Every structure is written in structure tokens, then in C-alpha cells.
């Protein structure tokens, strides 16, 4: 009886998240896997999965062959990978001192500071990216001042919008809170006595950081890196708005395949590759994170 109840409890608690994963993750991935092996429809979309003439399953590896024969797409993946990596590193460099500052400020101020970090989430994502379009646009005070300044030392004026630089700025801006929050959650738990002990035993500020604070914060670093890198890898809105033709990422191509070119099988192939990459990276982060003792 008790065992039965116990099992019931397990299902009541574990069931809903499991159902959620099945419906919103496993099922779409499965649909995508199947779609990647189908033929494109005559007017876009997908052709019927059972051939109209023979009535048999009508599958092909044509789209995969196309992906692996044209280096252009691999190149795009590598470029997106580089964008996401640079974004992750910059986010880490900005977020670490910020998270440390919050974690070490008086307890009563911490909640307010965390609130400030997540404040941007209160307005629409696209509006915030469009705001950067204005800030980086040629008419903005910031860009005009910059161009005036470099004009004084005899340099040609630059345009910032529609460049890889603008894409990186947008990516860093949007993803920064996802790096700050896990880092803060980790750093806040550190026992201050450990730093006292390190100092007492002869470690200066530099060594206290690299020998105690940083190694202990690695789980937070991995979590933040995964939360920034994976979404940044597949994003399309930011390169769409800020990147122009030069700043295109793999997310843009996938979007094009589905909405413009309407080649769903090929779009599915690109999505598959992206998903596999994301899972591999998340798995790696979890693996490295687990090997760290906390």
C-alpha cells in the first residue's frame, strides 16, 4: 500500500515535467528528424510522406548530402560558433566582476541589485534590440561623437550598424543576465571564512581569487556559459536586425529555409545539426561541471 502510494507520488511529481518534455521537446525533435529525411513539397513545405504513386514511405538523404557537399553551410556553422564563443567570453568578463560585486555587497542591497540585472526582461526583446539599432546607427550621438573623435586623429569615419561588431554588442547585451545570475547564485554561497583562511595563510588578493574564489565558482561559470552559448548559437533576430548581410548566422539561414525558401527538409537538417551541437555542448558543460567538487 505504502509502496503504491509512493509510486503514485512519484508520478504526480515527475509526471507533468516528463509530459512537458515529451510534448514540447521530444515530439518536435522527432517531427524534425522525420522531416529532415522527406522531400520538399512542390510549392514549399513537405511532400506527402507516403508516395502518391506507389503508396510506400517516401524518404531520402538528399538534404543531408546537400549539407555535407556544400562547405558554405559548415562555414556558417563555424562562424556562428565563433560569434557565440566570443559572446560567451565577453559576457563572462563583464558578468564575473558584476556578480562578485553583488555577492559581496550588503545582504539588504543584493535583491535590489539582482532586480536591476533582470530589469531589461521587463520590456520586449525586439524593442531592446531595435534600441541598439538607433544607438549604433549613424545619427546617434554616440556614433557621431566617436566619428568626430577619430576624425580629429585623421581617421575615416566608421559605421557600426550592420557589422559583426553590432551583432556581438547585441548578443552580449541580450545574454548578459543569463551569465550574471548563475555566477551570482554560486558566488553568493561561498563561505567568506575560506577567503579569510587563504589570506591568513599567506595569499594576497590575486592568489585568493585564482586559488579559492575562481575554482569554487567553476560550476557557475559552466552553467552561465551554457546558458549564453547555446541560445546565442541559434539566434536569428539579432543578426537580422543589427547584422546586415555580413553578420548573418546559422539561425538566419534556418529561418530562411522555413519562411522564405520554404525548403523544410533542408531547414530541418540544419536544425538537427544545431540541436546535436547544442546537446553536445550542454552535455560537455554538465560533465566538466560534475567533475568539479563544490
Amino acid at each position, binding site marked *: 500500500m505504502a509502496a503504491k502510494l509512493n509510486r503514485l507520488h512519484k508520478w504526480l511529481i515527475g509526471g507533468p515535467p516528463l509530459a512537458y518534455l515529451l510534448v514540447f521537446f521530444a515530439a518536435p525533435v522527432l517531427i524534425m528528424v522525420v522531416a529532415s529525411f522527406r522531400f520538399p513539397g512542390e510549392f514549399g513545405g513537405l511532400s506527402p510522406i507516403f508516395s502518391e504513386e506507389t503508396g510506400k514511405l517516401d524518404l531520402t538523404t538528399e538534404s543531408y548530402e546537400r549539407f555535407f557537399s556544400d562547405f558554405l553551410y559548415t562555414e556558417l556553422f563555424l562562424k556562428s560558433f565563433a560569434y557565440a564563443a566570443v559572446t560567451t567570453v565577453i559576457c563572462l568578463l563583464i558578468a564575473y566582476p558584476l556578480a562578485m560585486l553583488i555577492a559581496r555587497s550588503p545582504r539588504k542591497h543584493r535583491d535590489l541589485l539582482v532586480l536591476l540585472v533582470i530589469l531589461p526582461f521587463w520590456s520586449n526583446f525586439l524593442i531592446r534590440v531595435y534600441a541598439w539599432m538607433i544607438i549604433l546607427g549613424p545619427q546617434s550621438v554616440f556614433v557621431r561623437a566617436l566619428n568626430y573623435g577619430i576624425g580629429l586623429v585623421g581617421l575615416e569615419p566608421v559605421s557600426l550598424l550592420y557589422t559583426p561588431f553590432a551583432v556581438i554588442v547585441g548578443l552580449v547585451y541580450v545574454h548578459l543576465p543569463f551569465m550574471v545570475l548563475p555566477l551570482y547564485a554560486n558566488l553568493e554561497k561561498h*563561505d567568506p*571564512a*575560506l577567503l*579569510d*583562511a*587563504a*589570506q*591568513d*595563510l*599567506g*595569499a*594576497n588578493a590575486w*592568489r585568493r581569487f585564482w*586559488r*579559492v574564489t575562481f*575554482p*569554487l565558482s567553476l560550476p557557475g561559470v559552466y552553467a552561465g556559459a551554457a546558458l549564453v552559448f547555446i541560445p546565442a548559437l541559434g539566434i536569428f533576430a539579432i543578426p537580422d536586425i543589427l547584422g546586415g548581410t555580413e553578420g548573418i548566422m546559422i539561425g538566419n539561414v534556418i529561418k530562411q529555409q522555413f519562411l522564405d525558401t520554404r525548403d523544410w527538409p533542408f531547414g530541418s537538417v540544419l536544425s538537427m545539426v544545431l540541436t546535436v551541437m547544442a546537446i553536445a555542448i550542454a552535455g560537455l558543460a554538465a560533465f566538466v561541471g560534475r567533475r*568539479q*567538487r*563544490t
Partner: protein
Amino acid sequence: MALLEISNVTRRFGDFTAVNDVSLNIEAGEFFTLLGPSGCGKTTLLRMIAGFDAPDAGRIVVDGKDMTGIPPEARNIHTVFQSYALFPHMTVEQNIAFPLKMANVDASQIGKRVEEALEDVRLTGMGRRYPSELSGGQKQRVAVARALINRPKLLLLDEPLAALDAKLKESVQLELIGLQKEIGVTFVYVTHDQSEALALSHRIAVMNLGRVEQVDEPSKIYGFPRNRFVADFIGQCNLLEGEIGACEGDRMAVNLTGVGEVTALNVESDDPGLKGVLALRPEKVVIGRDLPESADFNRFSGKVHDFLYLGDVTVYIVELAGGMRIEALLPNSAAGRTKFFEAGDQVQVGWRYDAGHFLND
């Protein structure tokens, strides 16, 4: 010259004076204890010696060198923290090697010295473990080994036994005494546990409200507390209200309120009429049905109010005629008998004149 000289040190936090004009001299090789209730300033004083906090007034001199402005990492003083503060991401070996690495000791020597340190604290073979895999007593030993490995001039210990259970405490105390004797490093030990302080120390400074009340050897602190606070804080003590009568030689008459005149030891020849308390340890109070009469002996009749059977001893609370209560401690050593008196029994209590001494307010 003392190894550690604390001169007129004061530390305030806002309106609160945590350490108030404290002066202490601690000799090289000494096991010195700062004892007091929580909030008495002992930990603040320890943090100032370690360098985590700075005095508002006064100065701290170690081995002839003024420590003002020298940060903790540059002081040759190490601390064993109450929580041990072992680095959780490092093995036992790495923890113990940490101070050597910070001092840029040659890597070829570190392994050997860590091995020796592990041996000293009986943890040979545990070097590869992580702190989370150790018991409380083992963690404590790692913390001590880590703090001692590069032979500091001074080892500060902040309630290092507070987290251990009572049984373990005794063996760890013996270990600490042995270790201190063996390596000869000066220990400054902070605790609120008076029995710990009495068992471990060469000398004890009893602190209260930021001030040092008394500095003495354990037997002096226990036997001759200088004031009411020390008498009350260290061990159990009868504090009987009264005032001084006539003094003569090594004896003084004390008029106990509502009880009558008793004879006490005259130490400082105080003026008659001074009010205060007669301090009397319960184990020096004799209890019996019929006590002999003598000039050296104060004797009163009373009735057993209650008793506490504690296994090795029984504490009797005896109410005298005037309503004053006296605790008497009797060892349960008589064969075949577990206790001698019941509540309500008529008894006599008494003590030798030199068992009690007067503390004026």
C-alpha cells in the same frame, strides 16, 4: 620581552566598545587562553592579532615588531578557524601544502613536509581525500596541520573544538597539549568553555564586556577568582551576600546577610563595612548530619532543599535558617551507596575558613 604585546588596545563598532583598553603580554611557548562569554570581545581581539581588524587605539607588537598596517597575509601568524575553513576543492594534501605554496617554498620540499605534517596529526594515508570525506575530528586535525606547517610564530585558535562532540573533545584536547609541547609554538586560544580553558592553558585571561577581568594560571583563576564575574563564570560557585567585619591576621569576619558571622581568608585586608560576596566552591562545602565544631570551621544547620545526582557526584542545595541557599558537592564514592540525603532532611553544612574568600562589589 614577551612574544606578543598587546598594549591598551581598544576597538569600537559604532557605540559598542568590543574591546576596551586591553593590555596583555604573552610569552613565547605559552598556551594562552582568552576566555569569556559570547560578545566579550575575545574574537575581536583575536581578529586584531591576526590582522583582519585594526585597533582604534593601542598597538599590537609581535616579536618586537609593531603590527600596525601589516595585512594578515604578511604576518607570520596563522589561525585555526572555528569552521576550520578547509578549501573544499582541494585534497587534504593540497590544503596542507597551501601555506607552503603561498610562501613560494620549493616544490621538491613540499611533498616531504606535507607527509611529515600528516604524520604529526595522525592522518597518514588520508592525503588524497577531500574535506567532505573527513569526520569532524579529522577536519580539525587538517586545519591544525595546515596552520602549523610553515611554523608560524603564533598560532591563533578560534573555538576549534566547538564543533566536536563531548567524547571526542577530551582526546583532541590531549592531542593539542601534546602538539603544542612538541613543536613549542605559542598558542593563543579563544573559547567560551571554561573547562576547556582550565584543561589546556598555561595562563587564562578572563574577559567580560571588552575588558580583561583577570589573567592567571588556571588554578589561580579557579581557586582565587578576583571578582564576582570570574567566580561566577568559572565553574560553580556559591556567592553569599554579606559585609566585612573585623580583620585579623590571615582571617576576616564576614557578616552574611540573614545568616550570621563566618570566618574567611583575609587576602587584601579590606576595610570593615565593605559590602560584597563570599565566594565558596561547592566542593569545599562539607555536608553531614553532625559536623564537628572548630574555630577553623564555619558551621550551619539547614535542610536539604533539593539535590542533583550527576553520576560521579551529587550536588545538594541546602537552605539555611535565614533562607540563604548553599550548594554542597559530595562525591558518590562511598561503596554501596548512591546518595546520602533526601530532600527535606535536616543537615549541617560547613567549610574551613580558608575555603571562602571575600569579593567586594
